[in-house]
């Protein structure tokens, strides 16, 4: 239903941004998409900075895949996939945190569990007699299908994550950058690791709505990795990371509205292009100035 209405609209793209935006926001599903997208981009942009700093991108990637089986299980028993995601990613996050120091160095163990969980997810989905559409939206995201209640749930989770990060900000930064000294100073490094993985778990569970489990990197890692090349102060990097995630989400939604192609494709492409530009073109521009 939404797809057909979009397709008829795509011919009416006016090249006047104000008119185009007004047209977009006439639709409740687009409002919800922008609302959910905004919250997810802010949270993923911030959490992503710590993911990149702690070299935990593989762990974050694994969590989203573990979440896939949770979402599939939830679909199977007929509950909101987000709850399945939350349960599975949280348990997975605790498990990875319990592996201890520098979870990113436990690639093989995490990968082993990841493969098993993906396999479970496939089983659950095959048991589910519904359509492959559910699987598709879990894997690749379906931000245009986010309901108002899902937006509210995302908002609550987002606010909790932001408050938690504000509280643990300095110790988490310290433990991420210099774990040995932080430990010697009596910081609860193991607990900070657990908190961090739970933050990633919750952020992932909600980001899945926008980009899906397979494309979670696009919001959780790429914006932060790009921002890190542009600034050296953590707060600046975080602000830039959020800005990149927001920009990609908004532009992706905008283009997705007027074209028949998936929003998550555009989001992934935009952050990828930005990453390439910053990685390869930006250093040359800087070199010219100096």
């Amino acid at each position, binding site marked *: 239903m939404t797809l057909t209405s979009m397709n008829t609209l795509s011919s009416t793209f006016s090249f006047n941004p104000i008119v185009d935006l007004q047209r977009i926001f006439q639709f409740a599903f687009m409002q919800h998409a922008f609302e959910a997208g905004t919250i997810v981009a802010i949270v993923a942009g911030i959490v992503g900075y710590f993911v990149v*700093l702690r070299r935990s991108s593989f762990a974050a990637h694994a969590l989203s895949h573990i979440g896939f089986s949770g979402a599939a299980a939830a679909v199977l028993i007929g509950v909101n996939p987000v709850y399945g995601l939350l349960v599975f990613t949280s348990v997975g996050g605790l498990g990875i945190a319990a592996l201890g120091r520098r979870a990113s160095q436990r690639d093989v163990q995490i990968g082993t569990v990841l493969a098993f969980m993906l396999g479970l997810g496939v089983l659950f989905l095959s048991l589910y007699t519904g359509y492959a559409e559910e699987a598709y939206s879990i894997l690749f995201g379906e931000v245009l299908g986010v309901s108002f209640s899902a937006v509210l749930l995302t908002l609550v989770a987002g606010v909790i994550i932001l408050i938690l990060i*504000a*509280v*643990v*900000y*300095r*110790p988490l*930064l*310290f*433990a991420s*950058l*210099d774990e*040995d*000294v*932080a*430990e*010697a*100073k*009596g*910081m609860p490094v193991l607990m900070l690791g657990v908190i961090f993985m739970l933050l990633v778990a919750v952020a992932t569970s909600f980001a899945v709505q926008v980009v899906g489990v397979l494309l979670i990197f696009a919001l959780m890692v790429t914006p932060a990795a790009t921002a*890190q*090349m542009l*600034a*050296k*102060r*953590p707060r600046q*990097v975080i602000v830039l990371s959020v800005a990149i995630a927001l920009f990609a989400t908004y532009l992706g939604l905008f283009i997705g509205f007027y074209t028949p192609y998936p929003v998550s494709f555009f989001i992934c492409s935009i952050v990828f292009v930005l990453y390439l530009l910053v990685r390869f073109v930006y250093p040359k521009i800087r070199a010219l100035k100096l």
Partner: protein
Amino acid sequence: MTTQYEIIAAKDLVAGYPGNIVWRDANLSVNRGEFVAVIGPNGAGKTTLFRLLLGLQQPVSGTIKIFDEAPKRGNPQIGYVPQRHIFDGETNIESFELVRLGSSGKRWGLGVLSKKDREAALNALKDVGASDLAHRSLGVLSGGELQRIFLAEALVSNPSVLLLDEPLSNLDMRRERELLQLIHSVVESRNVTALLIAHNINPLLPYLDKVIYIANGKVATGTPQEVLTSECLSDLFGVHVEVLRDSRGNIAIVGIEDCHGCQPE
């Protein structure tokens, strides 16, 4: 100057784990303001001594005291520079942030406008002659520059004791000498006590008050003149070794394969 004040004291200390003793029967005494080298072959248990002092590990038996108390984790009087790898080029965070976290990293919250932390970090950077490195990225600093940043990170909380784990490794001889002079001048000006783990004792000799030599599951301690003798080290290693001195006072230990005290490998 100040009266001798014992800061670290160990009696019949046994380190390691039950069933896996690293070294035993250590009796140590370090006084305030002393510059102490911790020397010994790889795997002899030099870092273990630091872990005991930091409260990260418990003694198997015997006692160890720092400031008249059993070590506990998070002692604010200790500044610690662990042995570590260099940050890779991807870690794009300015040095100043790491130094500031040395004092503020323990506190919860965002700490957005803490002028005090900022000034303490800038002062610590100045003390180690690294003001110009404050806004450089950790990922692009050389080994010697990083060691100065780590030293500033340890100093920023105004500790009374510095534990430096192999700060001189991976430095060429000139940088090694520069860093040692810096550490020594910081120790003097701030009146802190420093324990420094090193591979090669020769560059340290002009500054040392005391040597803790760990080898062969045993610990020998005393002034360099007392410890760096053929008798003392033969006793420690359990084989006959000879300590030779060149005209400039450098020593070489002959008779053991892993020849600590001689020129670096």
